[in-house]
């Protein structure tokens, strides 16, 4: 199972990865040959390991070929209609999912609802390892797997569903720029607070992240993830920031979004776009999630037009009139 997972992840960020079934077939091949290796009475462990590595590399190569064929296949099947059984995968919503993943997942769900595309949400403890890019959420449509909002938007456009058709070139450029602003500032700040603030990491992130796993795997995976995120923060220049500076960045980002939104219904007049889905996903998750302290939520709550924007989208697309019930639905996020 671990190797199927590894092989799957090694496909990189290809927008369209092989379907689960294709990967599964390969894993069957791997699993059936495993006992053969184990049964040969080879006392030399290193020898077994080297054969195992060769096998693993072969599987990776064949997976890459499958991926290539599938992406070629995708071009011809792009026009197929949206199937009924489309599924969105995310980590366990009750006890595992973290603020940043929850925000991204909510953004994708909102986007699909705005497009009027039905999707079934499926919670898996290993969703992160099933995803072709290693990031959640991802959707499984027909025989294709697509992860993250950007590629999903492209994928639905190929199928003829788009929210940004009515925009002119300048507006589309601005929309893309603001989406990058949210990813660059809000998402990075969420990751920073989750994994680089020691109190939050110890009390919320590590226990929640590793909740489905038993000892010692839970500690290994949680620290591995934390180490990964911290390296990323150093690479993007956030490593030296203090918590206060990060809160200040969040305020600035919300200030910019609030200025841009003004008194409009949506960011681009009356028509919702993928930017609205993304902003809603992040702002709504931040204000409804209980972390070790309320500082992050309070910073966001200073901007009243963003709050009413969230409430409006929540009522329109999730059909829960009062926010308290809605928040109880989503705030199963990282609460203590």
């Amino acid at each position, binding site marked *: 199972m671990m190797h199927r997972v590894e092989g799957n992840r*090694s496909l*990189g*960020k290809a927008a369209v990865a092989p379907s689960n079934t294709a990967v599964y077939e390969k894993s069957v091949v791997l699993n059936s040959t495993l006992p053969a290796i184990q049964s040969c009475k080879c006392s030399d462990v290193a020898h077994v390991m080297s054969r195992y590595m060769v096998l693993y590399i072969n599987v990776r190569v064949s997976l890459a070929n499958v991926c290539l064929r599938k992406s070629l296949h995708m071009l011809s099947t792009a026009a197929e209609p949206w199937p009924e059984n489309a599924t969105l995968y995310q980590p366990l919503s009750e006890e595992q999912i973290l603020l940043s993943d929850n925000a991204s997942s909510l953004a994708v769900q909102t986007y699909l609802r705005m497009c009027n595309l039905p999707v079934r949400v499926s919670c898996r403890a290993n969703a992160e390892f099933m995803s072709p*890019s*290693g*990031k959640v959420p991802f959707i499984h449509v027909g025989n294709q797997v697509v992860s993250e909002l950007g590629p999903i938007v492209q994928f639905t456009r190929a199928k003829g569903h788009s929210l940004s058709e009515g925009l002119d*070139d*300048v507006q*589309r*450029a*601005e929309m*893309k*720029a*603001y989406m*990058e*602003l949210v*990813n*660059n*500032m809000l998402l990075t700040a969420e990751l920073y607070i989750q994994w680089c603030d020691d109190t939050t990491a110890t009390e919320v992130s590590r226990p929640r992240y590793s909740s489905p796993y038993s000892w010692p795997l839970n500690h290994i995976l949680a620290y591995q993830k934390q180490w*990964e995120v911290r*390296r*990323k923060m*150093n*690479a*993007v*220049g956030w490593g030296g920031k203090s918590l206060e500076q990060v809160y200040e960045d969040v305020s*600035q*980002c919300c*200030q*910019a*979004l609030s*200025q*841009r939104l*003004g008194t409009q219904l949506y960011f681009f007049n009356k028509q919702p776009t993928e930017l609205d889905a993304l902003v809603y996903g992040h702002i709504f998750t931040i204000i409804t999630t209980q972390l070790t302290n309320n500082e992050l939520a309070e910073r966001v709550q200073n901007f009243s037009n963003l709050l009413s924007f969230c409430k409006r989208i929540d009522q329109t697309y999730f059909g829960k009139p009062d926010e308290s019930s809605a928040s109880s639905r989503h705030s199963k996020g990282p609460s203590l």
Partner: protein
Amino acid sequence: MFSALCLLLPLVSPFCCSALQMFPSSVLPQAYARFAGAPLKVHKITNPWRSPTGTLPALKTRGDGSMSQPSKIIIHLRKQKYNADYDLSAKEGADTMAFVSLLEEKLLPALIYTLWVDAKNYVDVTRRWYAENITFPLNFLLPNRMHNQQLERLRVVRGDPLLEPGEELEKELYQDALECMTLLSQRLGSHKFFFGDSPSSLDAYVFGHLAPLLKIKLPNAKLHHHLTSLNNLQQFCTNILVLYFPTDVREPPSRKMSVHPEGGDFDNEPHKRRNQILSALVAIGAMLGYAFLTGIISIQHVRPKGAIESSSMGEEEEEEEEGEEE
């Protein structure tokens, strides 16, 4: 107080000793300072360890110490009342933030890739500039160290520890970068600057990221070709070069010379005579040392008796050695 601002830049330049430097991090603070009218003394140094922060570029001020990240430099200049965004409305300020994020997320990784990771560009251009301009022991160490750092940075940012430079990665990065340039071109439209009639910090950011692409002649120049196909963006960069970097625009012919060493690079080499003398001295020293060690030449203490014969022998041998060297 203001005259104490002093920007330290790496002395590695596509424009052959002009003020405009190679990397976005270097172009950006300069462009911003010129847009905002801040008096700035630019010093070019070859050794990043001589910079107060250990990296380049760096801004040295009298009161507040020194800083090296471009964004911090800009914030500092803003605090000194050199603000290029003074006329912008709040919404335009928000747009600036958004487009800066777009540049950092989409264009910067491709820029790093094309300058530092793409094998042909790195070996033919980037490493050569560094090797030619940095002093002796560092010119072997620094380029490789920076190459590895930048590759590592790309790996971490993309979240794939096994990332290898290759066509697939290049395709993904360039796709993002081309889209980003097209979006910028659409946003700019037929205007001279992004907001109004005077340049703002967004113009500095965009110029900082695009000028290297436009001006550096790289063997693998996909990004350059796309940029030149977007007429308004190219015009935007040329405009800023003419208006704000008038001394650098005259340089391109000499830059071409420096890229092709066959065309007279040898004559332009600084300290040519000094280097020749130094190498001759080193060679003579090595030969004499060898001669001493193997016993071809030996110095004997002058003895009161019978010393004349042996010492004259030694002198003859030494003269022979010297004659060979010349």
